């Protein structure tokens, strides 16, 4: 540590403990906001799957703290969204009670389903910071949510950066534009109002906190959070080998496999990731706006170089991400992007596989992602529509010292929808939900198994079905001699269907999903004896049982 890095001099007038206390308070304010959102939400993807994140920023738009329940997609994209808000509405123009929203994929989180809202934190006229929340809404209009859209205009209502409220007054026109374009207007507005309540409460609490310390001291402490985080991540990078490593993974795409080429450079100070050579943008909805590419690249880097540091602007500062313009990872408007996660979720594997040679003990093998998602749309009774999403988690890749967990959400973090809840809300009847034995890649450490999920249309009318998935063309790759996991597969009444199919599920028909397993780590022959014995006895799931 150099003299200028001495925390005492850098910390200026703070007492030891001040930074810790302020940071802890900010984290608790974010957690409380997320909890409130979940408990009041209508969207099943918010309330059961917890697909949201809340972040507090300083007045320069630097992220300071995020909710513990947070999807990596949002964490990486939210700061950029706020930058775009500030470009549209300069910081000096924000007033108490203002709420700005967008769902623009290039500004928000990569597809229209997620709405982001931000509110200012103001001490009188003085700007202290911002609070922003992103969450997956109940519906955004357009065609049924699928990967088959050809351009953004089919995917639903695009809300540009817009003032939803000015000084607390909702803009009635904005509200009407939204309610006129979605299938479940009450729920969409209900969730927007839930987001507004979160922002209001969180900004008031941050303001109180800043007031307790004085705004100037608060700002100094906020700066410390960021600079110390950067310093710690840089120290981890400095301790890692230097050099450039590459990897290539493929997505199934539609007609032909799509190559994702990844080059990672560690120079002792930062990590640069470049996707040069990656497949070009595609005609259907699996393109990834840069914001999402960035988020899913920075996420695995954070896991490797600073897993224990609460995420903030500083933890991401040492990372740079480049994706060629016009590639599938940086497409131009108006590319179709609805299912951007089907491509974007390969990026964590690309980054970790590239780092495997340099840091084998800090990475895991490829996981069975993207996890399959299915959208069901139909009627419970004449006139009573439903649209529900489900996520079916896959197996996670093994590490050098651990078996990969079975059927666990990765790299995003959502919960499943309970079978009993789903059956209460829809005519669907789930016939099977179990660990897909044998699907984890063999290895000294075994990849996690995927799951088998079968569901029948128990109603009397067809249910429209949209499958959003990939990784049907190959298994998740193992590392260091570990074997690949089993690929994903989809079928209706026993007949295979495409991983991005949209079709009607007739009454009585059954959809079967086999979610992929994770890759193994190390040669299977080196599996430690106690683990191998436990596999045989069925205490754990053996690689070979089916």
């Amino acid at each position, binding site marked *: 540590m150099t003299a200028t890095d001495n925390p005492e001099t850098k910390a200026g007038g703070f007492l030891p*403990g001040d930074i*810790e206390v302020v*940071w802890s308070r900010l984290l*608790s304010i974010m957690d409380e906001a997320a909890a409130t959102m979940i408990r009041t939400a209508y969207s099943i993807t918010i309330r059961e799957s917890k697909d949201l994140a809340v972040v507090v920023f300083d007045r320069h738009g630097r992220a300071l703290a995020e909710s513990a329940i947070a999807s990596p997609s949002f964490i990486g994209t939210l700061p950029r969204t706020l930058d775009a808000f500030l470009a549209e509405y300069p910081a000096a123009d924000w007033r108490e009670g203002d709420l700005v929203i967008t769902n623009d994929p290039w500004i928000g989180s990569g597809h229209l389903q997620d709405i982001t809202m931000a509110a200012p934190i103001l001490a009188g006229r003085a700007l202290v910071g911002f609070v922003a929340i992103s969450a997956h809404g109940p519906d955004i209009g357009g065609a049924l949510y699928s990967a088959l859209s050809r351009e953004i205009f089919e995917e639903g209502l695009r809300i540009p950066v817009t003032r939803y409220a000015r000084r607390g007054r909702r803009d009635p026109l904005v509200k009407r534009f939204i309610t006129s374009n979605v299938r479940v207007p009450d729920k969409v507005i209900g969730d927007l109002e839930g987001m507004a309540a979160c922002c209001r409460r969180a900004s008031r609490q941050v303001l109180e906190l800043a007031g307790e310390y004085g705004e100037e001291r608060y700002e100094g402490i906020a700066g410390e959070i960021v600079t110390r985080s950067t310093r710690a991540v840089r120290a981890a990078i400095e301790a890692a080998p230097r050099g450039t490593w590459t990897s290539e993974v493929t997505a199934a795409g539609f007609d032909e496999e799509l190559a994702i080429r990844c080059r990672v450079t560690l120079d002792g100070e930062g990590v640069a990731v470049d996707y040069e050579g990656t497949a070009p943008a595609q005609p259907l909805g699996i393109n990834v706006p840069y914001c999402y590419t960035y988020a899913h690249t920075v996420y695995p880097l954070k*896991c490797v170089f600073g*897993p224990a540091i609460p995420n903030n602007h500083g933890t991401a500062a040492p990372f740079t991400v480049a994706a060629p313009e016009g590639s599938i990872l940086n497409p131009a408007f108006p590319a179709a992007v609805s299912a951007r996660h089907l491509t974007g979720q390969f990026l964590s594997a690309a980054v970790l596989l590239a780092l495997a040679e340099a840091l084998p003990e800090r990475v895991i093998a490829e996981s069975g992602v993207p996890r399959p998602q299915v959208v069901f749309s139909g009627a419970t009774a004449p006139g009573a529509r439903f649209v529900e999403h489900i996520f079916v988690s896959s197996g996670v890749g093994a590490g050098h010292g651990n078996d990969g967990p079975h*059927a*666990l959400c990765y790299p995003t973090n959502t919960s499943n929808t309970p079978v009993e809840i789903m*059956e209460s809300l829809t005519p669907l009847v789930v016939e099977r939900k*179990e660990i897909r034995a044998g699907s984890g890649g063999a290895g000294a450490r075994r990849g996690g198994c995927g799951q088998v999920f079968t569901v029948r249309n128990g109603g009397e009318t067809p249910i429209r079905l949209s499958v959003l998935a990939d990784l049907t063309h190959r298994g998740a790759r193992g590392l260091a001699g570990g074997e690949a996991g089993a690929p994903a597969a989809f079928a209706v009444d026993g007949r295979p269907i495409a991983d991005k199919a949209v079709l009607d599920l007739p009454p009585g028909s059954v959809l079967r999903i086999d979610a992929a397993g994770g890759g193994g780590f190390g040669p299977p022959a080196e599996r430690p004896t106690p683990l191998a014995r436990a596999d045989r006895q069925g205490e754990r799931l053996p690689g070979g049982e089916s």
Partner: protein
Amino acid sequence: MNSGMSSGASGSQRRREPERVEGSAPLSVCVDIGGTFTDVVLMNGRGVVLASEKVFTTSGDLSSGAIAGVRRLLQGSGVAPAAVGEVVHATTQTSNTVIERTGARTALVTTAGFRDILELGRESRYDVYDLFIELPAPLVARRLRFEVDERLGADGRVARSPDPGRVRELARHLAAEEVEAVAVCLLHAYRNPVHERAVRAALREGGFAGPVVLSSDVCPEIREYERTATTVANAYVHPRIAAYLRTFERRLDEEGIGGSLSLFSSYGGRLTPAAAERRPIEMLECGAAAGVLTAAATAKQVGWPRALSFDMGGTTAKAAIVHDGRPRLARSYEVARLARFMPGSGLPVTASAVDLIESGAGGGSIAAVDALGLVTVGPQSAGSEPGPACYGRGGRRPTVADADLVLGYLGAGAGAGAGTEKSDLRLDPDLAREAIEREIAAPLGRSVEDAAMAIHDIVVEQMARAARLHAVARGEDPRRLRIVAFGGAGPVHAAALGWRLGSPEVLVMPGAGVGAAVGLGLAPAVCVVARSRLCPVEEVDWPAAESLIAEMRAEALGDMGLPAAAAVEASVSVDMRYRGQGYEVNVPFRGPPWGPESGEALDTAFAAAYREHYGRDNPGATAEIVSWRLELRQGTLQAPRSPAAEAEPSAGRDGATPVVRPVRFDDQFVDVPVFRRESLSPEARLPGPALVVERQTTTVVTPGARFGLDAFGNLRIDLDGEGR
């Protein structure tokens, strides 16, 4: 103790009439087994603590140490074992069994296709950034999870019935596998228990004699994973608890201790041994519940409508809200968290329990400097072995207690007021300073005192954060909550906590060191039952709802060991939400009887409750019922009383000039008077800063506050919202 309770409430098994001690109410012995210490307290029927003992918990055989403690307590106070009217008991046996994985060899029976629900859980990660995340292993391995081909619809209608013959075959297989207990959790059984009961009957026919636990009995609530996990946990601990209770009862008999035995529940009531044996998961949080009950009783005694219970021991701090002399209840919680205190890393339990938040911030919590050059405290704890550095038992890492000693909050040297749970400990300030210097002060380039202050501030903020989150999530303003503090380290930090929360006042009850055990003797008999019935309010069949409540009442009375005609206080509440939402608000609801107009009343009550929670309601949206809850109680929560409050003021309370010691507040040391609690004159109102020491703890009074004893012997600290 009111006569109704001692004659009817509990102990249907052991009914030996106590010998009446002339002119006195029946005596209660309260036994609270904790992680490190077992507290035993002797109380009379008026809530007065007559004597208390603190002994080491005997971890291998919990009840042996507890019984030894009871023997010592009775001998020390000259009470004949036969004069004991009742024994009330809280034990860590249930939670230890789950945490240490020492439960029964348990099998699980599920609907065909769903045997892995127990292992799949909710499929989310409790720590997003940990690539090597470790998940809790299920209590039942896959080879002991069996499927039955049956199905109920979401409305509870039978779609396919189980084949009893196949289940009988399964029973024989269970014997071959040496299975001790079976959990049965079928889809939608919360709506209709018929298939689970059929499975149990067939298992019996097939010769399985061990406990068979049905999800429809234990936890009839929607969400299959949480219900399965709860049912499995219950089966898993069942045989161990049964054996434990038999041993405990036998030992009481051997001691000749009379009266009834009741077990303490997680929701702060007493259970008969029979009910405790059947639903042992209801005791998972019983020790914590006892402490909150003490706080509730104390708050009621002094007339506080709402208060924050603050219990800080060696490894954790627990905060809970008490309202109108009652604890708030939660409907679900987690046990055995892997990453300590990280939500999502434990096993979920859907059962009523005192609603509390626990954080890894106790007197033994270890402080360190992390990669960011910041100070962290806990959740790792030095425990009692080796303990904080200042104990001089080989601990080298600095803890909260070491910081408290350096700051002058705790006194060096001998015993009284050491502020540790064990009052005969000697604290060594040199060892404390050395540890803080090495691990914190030197790496930061700050003084030992500054480093100690940082440890103190951080641990207090951690507790404040936990308490604040807990309060606000329940619609309470933390600044309006007065604090009832207890536990060995509670009174040391309570005023600082109160200042941070903006709380107006702190109270430290007499004998705060054994606070939780006292709660056992004050609690009424309580039983809580629930049933899920998803239904919009406008479609409720009110006569059917009344029969449902009647059925629940019969079950609750059975668990309480009471006849159908027993006089009990019943309260109904309803878990409700707007249609389309996924989480419920608990709405208290008067009745039965109900009628056609009850729907409107329920709608109104829900809107009010929703506004209280979330600050707004959704007019026009449809309200629906998820679950019905019935709570029966017999007797009322008593207020604790100290012997001092009953006795004549003793001589020598002259407020003699106290000792003075330097104590640090904020950034400087000031000379602070040290009072002995028993020497405080009842009338005096004194200015802070000050220290008040007693046998098992020290109360720190911050500058700007005023303090004194109230009529009940409670030490009251008036923070006036801004004293620091």
